[in-house]
């Protein structure tokens, strides 16, 4: 029996477990650790509330969790409650699948201190009931325009939530608190700003289509710019089926689109604007000494520079033209990507791409250039560069982009690597740490755990006073969420407070 642990309970972790238990149900025991009491990561805290069908995948995760050789340990923070080196002693193989908990910055002065400026990730986590983001200072009442920087699916998710009719959102699992803010919201216009052109939009057709179908919402674009850019890239577009379909959809709605300039002056109640070839250069803030708020600046607008595209037509770069324009807004959400953190300073970490260097999910001891992206398919690393028994899956492995299917494939790839290693009796992290004399391994080992400590992780956590939340506990919390939701006509009302979750687990 091989003992395996997975750090993180999002789709990367669960799909890795699903494939492993599907292939070797008798020979593997998997313990999954999650920092928060409640599992499922971005399926719960990232997927938009109005996309319940995407969340159906939770039923698959439930199946995995019901496997007799699978244990879920919620509310266990690896690095605090248990160290990584302990995991390496307790388990034969360790899979890191804790995703990307941070986001990229635009690099603007005051970005992290100005009221009204935040990341879309935080905003999404707030309306999805993530415990860490419930105290986020959200003000949707002092501005009629929100600006979202970035043109991916997260950007459209937040635009959709800000502009959807309330009765639509009220039927979702969005938190009651967020719904209350949205009821009072004065935001009628959302500008979705991309540094490149319409041929480089990163969102998918489904999300674009959804925006086009929101009742009472008009699209605004600079038609000349869009036509020019799409025309310029037409040969490239013709070769890319998804892009071609999205472009066709765009053309279909172009005639009825409002001009992007002064879209809100056109008398339309609600608009969303796709602004292309623009990059924010400066935050325009009220001066500190205004009585409005003595402590923090509040956002009043942003200065955007117009760009032009240079370089290859299939993947051009945006280059500033020096033309700057001010856009009035009181809410700026940056949606330019997530970022992973290193769990442990002794682990290899590619600080440029913010991923753990790996070959098909096997963690590499050297900072090899992103092995997942190499051109050819012969990407098996030579054995001396692999950190035995250590694996990575999901966004931490290949970078924070893509949808469920990409994370699933990616998790399967890691699982296949693990299965191959088990079949071919490759070293485990346990054997390495006990027998190897390699200096790197010794360094990675850290302190050797006290032999008197319990070999079973449950006892060890109990000794340390950690209240472990099991999957059965979570299902009880979930039943409470369903019951709460039912009284409001929602699929569930999420419990958003960790202390409350733990109290409820103790008392039920």
């Amino acid at each position, binding site marked *: 029996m091989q003992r395996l642990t997975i750090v993180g309970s999002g789709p990367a972790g669960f799909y890795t477990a699903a494939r492993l238990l599907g292939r070797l149900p008798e020979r593997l025991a998997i313990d999954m650790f999650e920092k928060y009491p409640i599992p499922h990561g971005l399926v719960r805290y990232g997927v938009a509330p109005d996309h319940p069908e995407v969340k159906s995948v939770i*039923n698959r995760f439930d199946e995995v969790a019901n496997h007799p050789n699978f244990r879920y340990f919620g509310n266990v923070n690896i690095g605090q409650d248990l160290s990584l080196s302990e995991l390496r002693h307790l388990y034969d193989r360790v899979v890191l699948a804790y995703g990307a908990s941070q986001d990229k910055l635009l690099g603007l002065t005051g970005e992290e201190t100005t009221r009204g400026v935040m990341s879309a990730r935080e905003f999404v986590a707030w309306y999805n009931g993530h415990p860490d983001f419930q105290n986020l200072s959200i003000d949707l009442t002092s501005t009629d325009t929100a600006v979202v920087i970035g043109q991916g699916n997260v950007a459209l998710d937040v635009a959709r939530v800000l502009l959807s009719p309330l009765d639509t959102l009220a039927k979702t699992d969005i938190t009651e608190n967020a719904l209350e803010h949205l009821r009072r919201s004065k935001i009628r216009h959302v500008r979705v700003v991309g540094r490149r052109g319409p041929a480089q939009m990163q969102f998918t057709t489904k999300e674009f289509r959804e925006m086009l179908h929101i009742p009472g919402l008009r699209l605004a674009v600079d038609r000349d710019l869009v036509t020019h850019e799409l025309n310029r890239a037409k040969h490239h577009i013709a070769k890319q089926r998804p892009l071609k379909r999205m472009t066709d959809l765009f053309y279909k709605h172009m005639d009825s689109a409002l001009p992007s300039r002064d879209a809100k002056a056109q008398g339309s109640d609600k608009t969303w604007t796709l602004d292309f070839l623009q990059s924010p250069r400066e935050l325009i803030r009220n001066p500190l000494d205004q009585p409005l708020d003595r402590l923090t600046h509040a956002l009043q607008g942003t200065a955007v520079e117009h760009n032009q595209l240079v370089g290859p037509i299939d993947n051009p770069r945006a280059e500033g033209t020096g033309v700057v324009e001010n856009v009035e807004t009181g809410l700026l959400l940056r949606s330019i990507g997530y970022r992973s953190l290193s769990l442990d300073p002794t682990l290899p970490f590619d600080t440029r791409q913010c991923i753990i260097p790996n070959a098909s999910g096997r963690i590499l001891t050297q900072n090899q250039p992103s092995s997942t992206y190499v051109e050819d398919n012969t990407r098996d690393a030579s054995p001396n560069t692999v950190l035995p028994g250590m694996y990575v899956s999901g966004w931490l492995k290949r970078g924070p982009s893509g949808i469920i299917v990409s994370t699933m494939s990616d998790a399967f790839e890691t699982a296949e690597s693990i299965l191959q290693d088990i079949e071919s009796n490759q070293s485990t992290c346990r054997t390495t740490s006990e027998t190897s004399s390699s200096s790197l391994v010794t360094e990675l080992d850290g302190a050797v755990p006290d032999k008197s400590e319990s070999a079973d992780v449950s006892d060890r956590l109990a000794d340390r006073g950690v209240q472990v939340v099991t999957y059965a506990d979570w299902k009880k919390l979930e039943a409470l969420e369903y019951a709460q939701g039912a009284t409001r006509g929602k699929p569930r009302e999420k419990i958003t407070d960790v202390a409350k979750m733990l109290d409820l687990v103790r008392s039920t």
Partner: protein
Amino acid sequence: MSLISLHPLKRMLPPLGRFSGVSVRHLGSRSYPNLRVTRLQDYNSSALWKMNGTRLTVTFVTPEGQKKTVRCNEGDSLLEIAHANNIDLEGACEASLACSTCHVILDENIYDQLEEPSDEENDMLDLAFGLTETSRLGCQVRMCKDMDGMTVYLPSATRNMAVDGFKPKPH
């Protein structure tokens, strides 16, 4: 959401729910969170076949080239057939057209007989790995007599960056 029927007959196939004793969520249902896909584990019981009359076969070919021929009924979707027979086809969104994890590849002659995919299915196919000219979502293709004995190819679930033409995003 239209069920796929055969051209030129444009036959509407009966909904799945007709199988007594087997509850199957109807396509297009948005009854989250209570939706459950029934994995039809006992679907192969001969009693059910006798009850429903038709007996068709379909051969799945795995990415590794392994063939598995299984029996099924008229009206079954390829996703349901795969699940009933422990064939690796995910179906993460449980046939609600919100993912592409049940991507399958058909023979051209079968593909051509099917109705065109809907915009929603195409949106998801856009995101499938290793998309081909004859790709469909397994949850949207339902068996009928004229498809008896057909072959369904499962694409590699593992993303192959080189094949997909995937390029890392510029920073």
